[in-house]
């Protein structure tokens, strides 16, 4: 069984964005950590994870229709 999520990768992570990222199909029960691995994103760069505008973690399990955002550390001024 598969689910569809809306995926948004920010800043340096944008290069890992798959095609049709707003309806990205993954297996049901996939965690953020697994998806990060599948997309080839270095884990330490997946610093700030949010699902439906709430902070989440690599262990969070994705549900159908979730909007997932991943933001790397940003420190410039």
């Amino acid at each position, binding site marked *: 069984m598969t689910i569809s999520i809306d995926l*948004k990768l920010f*800043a340096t992570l944008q290069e890992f964005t798959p095609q049709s990222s707003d309806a990205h199909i993954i297996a049901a029960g996939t965690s953020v950590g697994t998806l990060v691995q599948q997309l080839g994103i270095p884990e330490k760069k997946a610093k700030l994870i949010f699902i439906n505008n709430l902070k989440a973690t690599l262990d969070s399990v994705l549900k159908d229709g979730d909007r997932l955002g991943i933001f790397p550390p940003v420190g410039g001024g």
Partner: protein
Amino acid sequence: MATVWGSFRRWGVDNLKQHLPEILLEASRLLTLPDGSNRNIISLLDTADISQRSGRTRKEIDILALEQSIVPERYIRNMDALSMKDQITLLQSRVCIVGLGGLGGSVVETLARIGIGAMTVIDGDIFDESNLNRQVLSSEHNLSQTKTAAALEKILTVNSSILIQDYSEKMDEENAVHLLEHADIAVDCLDNIQARFILEKAAKKAGIPMVSAAVAGFSGQITAIFPEDRGLELVYGPEQSLSATRGAETTLGNLAFTVSLVASLECAEVVKILLNKDSDLRNQLLIVDLKEPTFERIRLL
């Protein structure tokens, strides 16, 4: 000007201070605003003149005028988004701006224009050519000059009534608390993550709120941290687990429009915190992506 002269002659130098309200009223004039309403305003020239003759600072004169519903003309377009009482509060506030690069330069100018009464500006750096793409205080004419000297010049050019404390030094754990003395709020305009944690600790120690922002390429983020909040660890993780002191900006650089936008967001938050003593961005992070473009507010708790 002639009115002010007449007032001074009439009251005599010794009685100036007690008659300042009348003098201000006589120097003021009625202005019809674009919405058809009328306001009593007083010019920069007249407030400077009254300040010089009475021995009171320009800021004190501006506050005295506002207390009598006379708006210094330089602040007339702040009304009514800000009330006269709000303007007085801002004039009575001190903001500490830490870092005078991209974010800091824009923050300094915006806060000077809106009428913050006192500023502490901190940066140990000098300008170089790589700053010219985004740092509004830098120019081809001041390369190799200290960033604090440029900030001082900008503030005094825009609003010479502001009291300024400038420190051309890097904030570290030793000097941080001292540098924040007397400030009502700190603005994080720093360029690395580690320094942000130093500032956060000092602000918490000083018992003052802080507005923190960072930028990289087309992206930026901003949050507000009060002394009792968990703050930066919610954004970057615990300080001891930091794997690098810099972030995505090492790859993406910093673009002028992202910097000025995020600096404006910081200023809006600073003003609201000074006026309302709270912020909707506590335990939240506003993430801006100018590529798509999107604004997202993330709940960190």
